[in-house]
């Protein structure tokens, strides 16, 4: 069986939370500086080899004078979660297995650990992540089919493939909690048959845990914890609601069996931290995203900012005219 312990995921892509914050902050600051310097954050990607160059300065741009505001650290965070959820929606629409969805989300998370959403459009990167995930997981769907399914030009998907692969350092084999859940459910069946609970209800527990992992995938947890920890946290939380087995006893058995370096208390703490991340999860709605989307659009194309302001002015003029007429009546 493929082993997480010897994987590039464990070696290179599991972080401490302060690492994540540092990386996101660095990417955010870099994009803000690019905006100040060039008047746009849109980077030029060489479609051939994925190399990236800074943008040409926008015409009439005076360095440091940009009226366009960069996205804040928090707005970037919101954007990432929004598009990660979109990945889940796209995968569900195509009836892809959970593994593809999880791999795509992890690619997306890793990509935006190194780039700001202001530098590469998340809507495009999201699709390329799904596409690459399908290839790696041997569930191949053509770029055209994927693009068509969500009314997007499939060329966008292909244009971003090389930059995605390079940013991921070609570490494309991903371990997801879904598979670990299957393993634990098999194990729990033996546990139940030994008189520790009704094994008929394990199907229910499995379903609830999978739904819980779907939420987990939208948090930072997959970059902080191992798939096994995530799976156990999901089962623990689901069992709290369904009361299928004595989960504390099950954990004790696991730990006595594994002679683990990590004491059970520490592990329970990890489970609590993971579930706290899920509880704190704030999934933005389309409405929440309108303002952020507008800002993002302006960062990419500052001329759209001027147009937006003109429209705004027009609207307010129209409004003030109407108000004066109203006053006369």
């Amino acid at each position, binding site marked *: *069986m493929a*082993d997480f312990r010897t994987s590039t995921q464990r070696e*290179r*892509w599991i972080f401490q939370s302060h690492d994540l914050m540092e990386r996101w902050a660095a990417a955010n600051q870099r994009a803000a500086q690019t905006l100040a310097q060039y008047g746009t954050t849109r*980077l030029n990607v060489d479609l051939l080899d994925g190399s990236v160059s800074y943008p040409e300065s926008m015409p009439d741009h005076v360095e440091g004078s940009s009226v366009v505001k960069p996205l804040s650290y928090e707005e970037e965070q919101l954007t990432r979660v929004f598009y990660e959820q979109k990945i889940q929606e796209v995968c569900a629409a195509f009836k892809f297995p959970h*593994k593809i969805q999880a791999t795509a989300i992890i690619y997306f998370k890793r990509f935006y650990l190194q780039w700001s959403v202001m530098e590469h459009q998340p809507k495009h990167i999201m699709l390329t992540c799904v596409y690459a995930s399908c290839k790696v997981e041997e569930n191949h769907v053509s*770029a055209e089919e994927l693009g068509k399914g969500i009314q997007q030009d499939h060329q966008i998907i292909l244009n971003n493939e*090389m930059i995605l692969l390079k940013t991921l350092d070609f570490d494309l*084999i991903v371990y997801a909690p879904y598979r670990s859940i299957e*393993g634990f459910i098999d194990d729990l069946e033996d546990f139940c048959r030994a008189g520790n609970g009704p094994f008929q209800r394990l199907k229910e527990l499995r379903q609830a845990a999978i739904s819980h992992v779907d939420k987990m995938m939208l948090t930072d947890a997959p970059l902080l914890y191992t798939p096994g920890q995530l799976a156990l946290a999901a089962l623990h939380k689901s069992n709290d609601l369904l009361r299928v087995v004595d989960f504390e006893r099950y954990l004790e058995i696991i730990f006595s069996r594994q002679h683990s370096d990590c004491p059970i208390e520490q592990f329970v703490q990890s489970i609590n931290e993971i579930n706290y991340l899920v509880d704190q999860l704030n999934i933005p709605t389309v409405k929440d995203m309108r303002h952020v989307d507008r800002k993002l659009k302006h960062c990419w194309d500052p001329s759209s900012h001027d147009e937006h302001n003109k429209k705004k002015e027009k609207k307010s003029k129209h409004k003030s005219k109407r108000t004066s007429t109203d006053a006369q009546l």
Partner: protein
Amino acid sequence: MATIQNKPTPTAPSTTTGGGLRAMDLYEKLEKVGEGTYGKVYKAREKATGRIVALKKTRLPEDDEGVPPTALREVSLLRMLSQDPHVVRLLDLKQGVNKEGQTILYLVFEYMDTDLKKFIRGYRANHEKIPAQTVKILMYQLCKGVGFVHGRGVLHRDLKPHNLLMDRKTMALKIADLGLSRAITVPVKKYTHEILTLWYRAPEVLLGATHYSTPVDIWSVGCIFAELVTNQPLFPGDSELQQLLHIFKLLGTPNEEMWPGVGKLPNWHVYPQWKPTKLSTLVPGLDSDGYDLLEKMLAYEPGKRVSAKKALEHPYFNDVNKEVY
């Protein structure tokens, strides 16, 4: 790969103020050295350092689907496996354009001066046998490499002399061409059985098994072992059926007693009943330990086949200097 740190850096990857250098500005092709799963392989010189490398070139298909999945799989698996001395090292990956304007992907590998196919061919042409100790050293390295790959949860699925690179001077052997490999997942997927060069293909794959695992590679290792000893392929079939008949003729037709469940495999029919030939007749020139190991590698029942890890502990390898290899 050349530019890889232990963890990705917080700064943007390779942001420049101009376009990146093209692959062919970085390397000078010296000669074509072979064909891989999906393209030509060249010996080349890295212009900046003078280092000799192997460039595995793949033309991106006209189907407008970007990087081929086989290339992606090979690269991602090599990222995981390249730290082992018995797996060829992937140094970099470049993309470029050829004279016709087609997009080309280059996998840059460490250069090895020959492969096991050429090595065996050289001895065969001179009507010489490969020295017994050389066979042993090569087999030890092969088992070590396969053991490492399997230990990382990967099936190679296309082990053959052509995919085993060698250094003539040091006798170092490295596994290459992971284009058909895959990470083993649980539950085990139904794998395609349109894989592997016929001569080294395990009987369970030929019989249409869709759930198979690491023993398919061990069968290939056994076939390679026999070929190293005799300079001839053990089972040179030219179709799936001929390949099966070849195996049955030499090792005896399997039955439920020696291989439980064989009759339930999709491609099982009523085959002629052959008796097994002694391995010492088929592969003359081995000692008793060698025959014992070969027999364990060519066991019909996949579950009974020796693992690569266990093979390394076999008495056949007792006199190998394990410090060196």
